[in-house]
């Protein structure tokens, strides 16, 4: 490996690391301000989805942040199929997901 290719590779790695953080850091306070779309269903005790199947929506307060992020990503990608959640998750950035997850994770019993 020449010095030039070594330097180029190093620069590219540094750039990639800068441009593509693997995990967005969640900001709980920012997440609290982003719950408007969640609260209409998840904020109501005993609330049930009406479509396409009827069941109680899951509790989010106190849930693991990493799980909330993975659930939202799965809805966005289609690995989890739910029309309402797919539409909502599609509107969220990675930062939004991390912020919401950080907020809910800290609001358990």
């Amino acid at each position, binding site marked *: 490996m020449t010095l030039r290719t070594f330097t180029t590779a190093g620069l590219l790695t540094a750039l990639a690391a800068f441009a593509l953080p693997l995990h967005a850091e969640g900001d709980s306070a920012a997440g609290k301000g982003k*719950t408007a779309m969640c*609260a209409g269903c*998840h*904020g*109501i*005790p005993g609330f049930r989805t009406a479509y396409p*199947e009827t*069941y*109680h*929506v*899951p*509790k*989010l*307060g*106190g*849930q*693991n*942040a*990493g*799980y909330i*992020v*993975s*659930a939202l990503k*799965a809805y966005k990608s289609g*690995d*989890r*199929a739910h029309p309402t959640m797919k539409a909502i998750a599609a509107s969220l950035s990675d930062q939004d997901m991390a912020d919401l997850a950080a907020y*809910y994770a800290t*609001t*358990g*019993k």
Partner: protein
Amino acid sequence: MNKLLIVMLAGASLGLAGNAMAADAAAGKEKAAICTACHGEGGNKPLAPDYPKLAGQPADYLVKALKDYKSGKRKNPLMAPQAQNLSKKDMQDLAAYFAGQPGDLVVKY
């Protein structure tokens, strides 16, 4: 005619018995050992941050999740093989058990 009536009644009572086959939390506890290996004691202490807490989650939501893992509607390489082995009754029993466990989860606005 009487025989036909008896057969019909027997069939009807079997159907009723099938419907009345209630979820059994105690039986669910017996079946939950493999679940708690990852989701933690009572489903409230997951071993990894991206595993969900189950304790206190609505039973019908947990059944829905297991059904979707089994059918492939919800794609997850860890849960798909676990759900394959579960009957509908197993899912109902497990869900009843975890829904009744104390834990961190709350409905949060």
